[in-house]
């Protein structure tokens, strides 16, 4: 029985001389893991700041589109929409500056810090891995191969639904912002052209609003998949985004 176990599963005798000596290996599911450093501190810091900014942006953005019901009393006693918009713009700045910082970091960080900004469509292996990942999510295959950075499906989704949509939100957001600061402001000069392209000012509001829903759907799916993968894939995910290290649960070759 024990002989049929994969090499990385530890046996009772493997624990001798460790702090686990004397315990049973099987119920502990004791195993040898390989750990690699994937997400460097700036990437992790950015991920969580960015996630926070997006939560604030989505809530305040939704409220800008559909304000809460009318407040009673004098107008001078309230500044509700004022605060909602203030928070939206504050978070927008954090989001935009963070995005810029993340782009800059891609030049200095490890190769995994660059995965956010491209999809290797020119590589056959990418398409093979993508298909494999789809089969795993369709419960046809049990395990996908191991990945140090994002798996192919994750990279594609993140690129489309986060990187591109995020850029779109920044461009349309600052274009809308120039309504307040004027077309001669830097926002107007840099992003004002977006509005006529999308069919005008109102249409820009519309597409900015749709962009929010794309990102919300991404976040729902993202949180589900990283949690699921963290539980049942061959590597850890969530902790990798917290402490940077990714553990592989087995050492077998793919």
């Amino acid at each position, binding site marked *: 029985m024990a002989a049929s176990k994969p090499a990385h599963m530890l046996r009772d005798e493997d624990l001798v001389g460790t702090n686990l000596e004397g315990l049973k290996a099987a119920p502990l599911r004791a195993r040898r893991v390989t750990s690699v450093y994937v997400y460097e501190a700036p990437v992790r810091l950015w991920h969580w700041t960015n996630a926070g900014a997006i939560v604030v942006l989505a809530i305040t953005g939704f409220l800008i589109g559909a304000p809460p019901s009318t407040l009673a009393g004098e107008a001078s006693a309230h500044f509700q929409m004022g605060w909602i918009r203030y928070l939206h713009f504050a978070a927008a700045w954090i989001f935009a500056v963070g995005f810029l910082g993340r782009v800059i970091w891609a030049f200095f960080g490890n190769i995994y810090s660059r995965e956010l900004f491209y999809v290797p469509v020119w590589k056959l292996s990418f398409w093979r891995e993508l298909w494999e990942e789809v089969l795993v999510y369709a419960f046809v295959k049990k395990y996908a191969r191991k990945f140090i950075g994002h798996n192919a499906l994750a990279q594609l989704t993140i690129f489309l639904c986060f990187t591109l949509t995020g850029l779109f939100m920044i461009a349309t957001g600052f274009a809308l912002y120039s309504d307040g600061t004027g077309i001669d402001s830097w926002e107007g000069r840099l992003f004002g052209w977006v509005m006529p392209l999308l069919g005008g000012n109102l*249409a820009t509001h519309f597409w900015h609003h749709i962009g929010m829903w794309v990102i919300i759907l991404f976040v729902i799916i993202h949180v589900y998949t990283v949690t699921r993968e963290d539980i049942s894939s061959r590597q850890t995910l969530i902790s990798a985004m917290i402490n940077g290290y990714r553990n592989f649960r087995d050492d077998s070759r793919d």
Partner: protein
Amino acid sequence: MAALETFYEVMRRQGITRRSFVKYCSLTAAALGLGPEFIPQIAHAMETKPRTPVLWLHGLECTCCSESFIRSAHPLVKDVVLSMISLDYDDTLMASAGHQAEAILDEVMEKYRGNYILAVEGNPPLNEDGMYCIIGGRPFVDQLKRVAKDAKAIISWGSCASYGCVQAAAPNPTAATPVHKVVLDKPIIKVPGCPPIAEVMTGVITYMLTFDRIPELDRQGRPKMFYSQRIHDKCYRRPHFDAGQYVEAFDDEGARKGYCLYKVGCKGPTTYNACSTTRWNDGVSFPIQSGHGCIGCSEDGFWDKGSWYARLKDVSGFGIEASADRIGMTAAGVVGAGLAVHAAISALKRARYKGDDV
């Protein structure tokens, strides 16, 4: 060619006194946001410059621009400006008609070749060779192109000439087309609005006549001095917007108290125009002051952008119409349910895991 009259001479000939003339110059300076030091400059220009004739053509339209124009708040401005332009050609305002009128057009074009300003109200329909709008027996589009050829600059009055307006609403059966898509080689000043505000119209035309140049334009070709701020930026209900006090229905308490009209579809936040500062009819009121949201009449495509009583247009397709939020929430619900099923299946598969394969 005989020596051309100056503006001042034309005005005097029209019976305008010196005193009124000076008043007019100071009013103009004020209307254009210029300081008092500009008054002598304007007066000097009017006294010495040969008058620039304005030809005013009418295409597919409702004539609301002319209606607005002749109701300019200050009668003096109206009289002066009209005296400068109505002499020439404006088929709804001038006295002559028929062949006589068309002859004037040719005469002015000939005499002032390359020097006259063409003001266009309405737009040319292009379908069926332009036969949906016939002027003097010929399609309007022909007249427009002919007169535009030797014009110094073109003013597109109103949303029709600037953007197409109601007659260009989908599916636009007559192919009503804004002027800048028909005349491609002339400077075009767009003065959108349905109609544009009288003071804005007289302001633009006075600026061009007195300073002999085109006012500074924004990206869309509108004069910055009147179209650089939104209705929302100067709306007197703005404090209610910032406070979070809205009209939720046209007969509620908020409506009676004059709260912000954002939730009943006010397009003020996306509309560039001078209504909230200049107002209408001698500064009496403007739509928002009368309790109705702005419909965005000076914005491109306002006639096709969904309800005037909803903030954003609905998403249509697959035989349904719903707001972006409804679609988003439905999608989130569907995705959420899908993920729940996926999670359940994953958990069932996982339950058989003994921790010993990988």
